[in-house]
């Protein structure tokens, strides 16, 4: 199986060579790992490798192929590239280039003000929306000059993490 770490720009080939109970032999790219792995509570794993003890939490973020994994020091985003993912990717090539046109909110909050309407021209750096969350207001600006294709939110509305607020043409 292929696993991708987009932020680390890494794609690893993973294979389980052996598994009996909590004993696993893994092959990642050209290295093999003999580990002992148990799930101690939902999504939390205890892993022993060469005597070292690791606590790792695997959080599925979308379906069962995208994960955020927390280790002691760092979080990683991973995607498991199964057959279905490969198929979907092959169909969507090019379409994802669209994402630069969307102003998304990274966290849940409440829309305080919207400064543009459908069809407005905007310039790079212009504030489009103000969102408030936890006593802090954040401004969302246009990354480039352009035209507002669609405003998807209105003041007073509650928005979810990753929700699209404005689409530019």
């Amino acid at each position: 199986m292929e696993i991708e770490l987009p932020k680390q720009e890494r794609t690893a080939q993973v294979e389980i060579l052996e598994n009996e109970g909590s004993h696993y032999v893994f092959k990642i790219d050209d290295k093999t790992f003999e580990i002992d792995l148990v799930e101690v509570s939902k999504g939390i794993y205890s892993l022993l490798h060469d005597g070292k003890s690791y606590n790792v939490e695997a959080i599925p973020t979308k379906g069962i192929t995208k994960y955020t994994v927390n280790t002691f020091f760092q979080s990683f985003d991973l995607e498991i590239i199964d057959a279905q993912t490969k198929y979907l990717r092959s169909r969507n090539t090019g379409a994802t280039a669209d994402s630069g046109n969307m102003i998304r909110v990274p966290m849940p909050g409440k829309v305080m003000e919207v400064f543009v309407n459908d069809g407005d021209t905007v310039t790079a750096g212009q504030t489009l929306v103000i969102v408030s969350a936890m006593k802090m207001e954040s401004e969302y600006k246009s990354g480039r000059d352009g035209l507002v294709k669609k405003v998807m939110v209105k003041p007073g509305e509650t928005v979810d993490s990753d929700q699209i607020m404005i689409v530019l043409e």
Partner: protein
Amino acid sequence: MIKKVLVANRGEIALRVMRSCREMGISTVAVFSAADRTSQHVRYADEAYPIGPAPSNESYLKMEKILEVAKKCQADAIHPGYGFLSENALFSQRCREEGIIFIGPSPEVINTMGDKISAREKMVDSGVPVVPGTNDKLISDEQAIKVVLDIGLPVMIKASAGGGGKGMRLVKEEKEILPSLRGARSEAKAAFGNDTVYVEKFVTNPHHIEFQILADSFGHVIHLCERECSVQRRHQKIVEETPSPLLTPEIREQMGRHAVQAARSVGYEGAGTIEFLVDNDLNYYFLEMNTRLQVEHPITERVTGVDLVKEQIRIAAGEHLKIKQSDIIQQGHAIECRIYAEDPDNNFMPSPGKIRHLTEPLGLGVRVDGYVYEGYEIPIYYDPMISKLIVWGAHRNEAIEVMKRALHEYKITGIKTSIPFLERIMENTDFILGQYDTGLIENNRDTLFNIKVCNLSCQDVSIMVAYVDHLRRRDKQLEHPSTPQPSESAWKKTGRGKR
């Protein structure tokens, strides 16, 4: 006697107050907004009543609604916590009118200390050093220029009714004086309905050091030593400690005496805090008085052995304060870290959401004051502080080591928190040496914002675990194709109408 206390607050401070009430045999009443039905303070209290929709100004700031609940459930007293109505003179006044004890100072004292010019005047009168500046309102343009130049640049123009950084302007050059004056005035007018401003000398990167005081209604006033609050980001404290690594025993005693004088000068009653600016030459100046419990009060409790909430309640009940100044000795060293739901590596952006897993640090020298639990969804309407971690050590170095250990044990997943950033502060040389002021974070951006990068093995470990978890879930899906996915919220299933 106080038998029932309504806590007009939420989050960790509501729990903290209720814990002391429970230990005193006092029953507790929670009030909650629509966003807080599942919040811990509602579950912890003996009684709980809804007071309105999620936004604070429709719930936690609704005085009359809260008073109505207090009367209905026959509460003897109201504890306001910090924030919300805690420094609201009108609320203190309304409690008095309704015959309910307000656990905090009188409306008169809140008013005096809330107006910065009148507070300055009181301090000057009673011999407490204030930041060089003027007690006068700035009236004409000429007078303003003269006053500023007399004090010497840089200065800070401040709104008398001010707070939260509004109506404030830093002036570094002469030509900025008049534009800044006008700016400060119009902002103050808009924010507080009062355009009175005054001017103070600007101290670059000072220390923020505050003294805790307790005063009963019989004129007995003591201080409980200082808290060093100079580790700040965006003017918000995130780490506090006591004793301050800066102060000498002589300066501590002197500042303590001035703090007691400051409280006496206004006839203060209850628990309060005198904030000082201190420069690196140990010159100190009265900054303001907080007429409530502070977020960081637990470090004082740890080194003095005094439960400040219990003392607040006893004083409010009209009892004599039994602690003498000579009883107060700082034992060892305490540090507090504030845990926020925020992303330190993305400009401290708030990170509300659902708590997936929670492991609190335990063992020797550790106190946690929190309120979230596994499965709890942190609402977007309120302060992102989710807990306070307080540690104690026989000396400062040990306290830092305990804090590092406790931060390492503290696991909150599902949201981002300030824990990794706090760990980096505990590793910072300036902090470890105790040689820091309010410039600490700005002066250490390089190391504080550089993420500790794990070697390749962390990635490999993550890959293995994600892969095994994926295979397990896939197998489960094949066995039970309709099992809902874990990302689906349990909350979407409520409200099924009548049966």
